[in-house]
């Protein structure tokens, strides 16, 4: 979508939000995984660097 008049926000998303208990459980589980990584000594910066490596590996494998 390209709109050149975004000075005021455009009409909000039409896609309905339906969140189930399973969605919340998964989010809680994944959020906990991050906290556990931090408890094991990784910093948010370390995790960012890991993601950055993944981006670079991804770009190399698609060449």
């Amino acid at each position, binding site marked *: 979508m390209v709109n050149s008049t975004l000075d005021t926000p455009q009409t909000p998303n039409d896609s309905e939000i339906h969140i189930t208990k399973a*969605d919340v459980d998964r989010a809680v589980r994944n959020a906990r995984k991050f906290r556990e990584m931090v408890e094991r000594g990784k910093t*948010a910066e370390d995790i960012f660097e890991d993601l950055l490596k993944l981006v670079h590996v991804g770009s190399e494998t698609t060449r």
Partner: protein
Amino acid sequence: MVPKLLDRLIRHANASKLPSVIIGGLALPAYNIARATIDIDFCIYAKTQKSLDKFIAFLAADDIFTAQNPQTSDILFVVFTSDHDEAEVWLTPCDRFRWDPEMVHRILHFTKEYCVLSPEDFITAKLGRAGRAETDIDDVMQIVINNATSLDWKYLEERVQWAGLNEDLRKVLSALRKYDPEIARDIPLE
């Protein structure tokens, strides 16, 4: 060693005096969550065409190209290198709204080199995405779960209201309250 594309984009944004942030999945560790991603989504705030042109000239001089003719009124453009590295350079934090001074003021220095939007603006951008997917809602839920006690709830409320997304945020928070009573006590918004 040639610096990676993201670092080069940041260097050229800084040289052009353009505020810049990482957006998308790569920004998530700044909000205490993570998921795998292979995309580089980079966002700059170019107030004038002159500053945008300067940035693009810096990129071109560093062998980073675009096939488009970016204008400040655009939402994003794609850049690539001869090594086939690619990134989306966004001119707005989201395809539903533009930068404003408060968003710029609230930019977070995640590390010495890397900046991101404030968590409240990131949540608003996620909720406002035109192609909003389940992943975006999942990201928002996780950010709330891991940052509930540190979010600026008043600002978040104002920002989603400004973007016309208050009902969407309310649905996310209601679901979290309903299914995760532990997090409920840390969410002040009704």
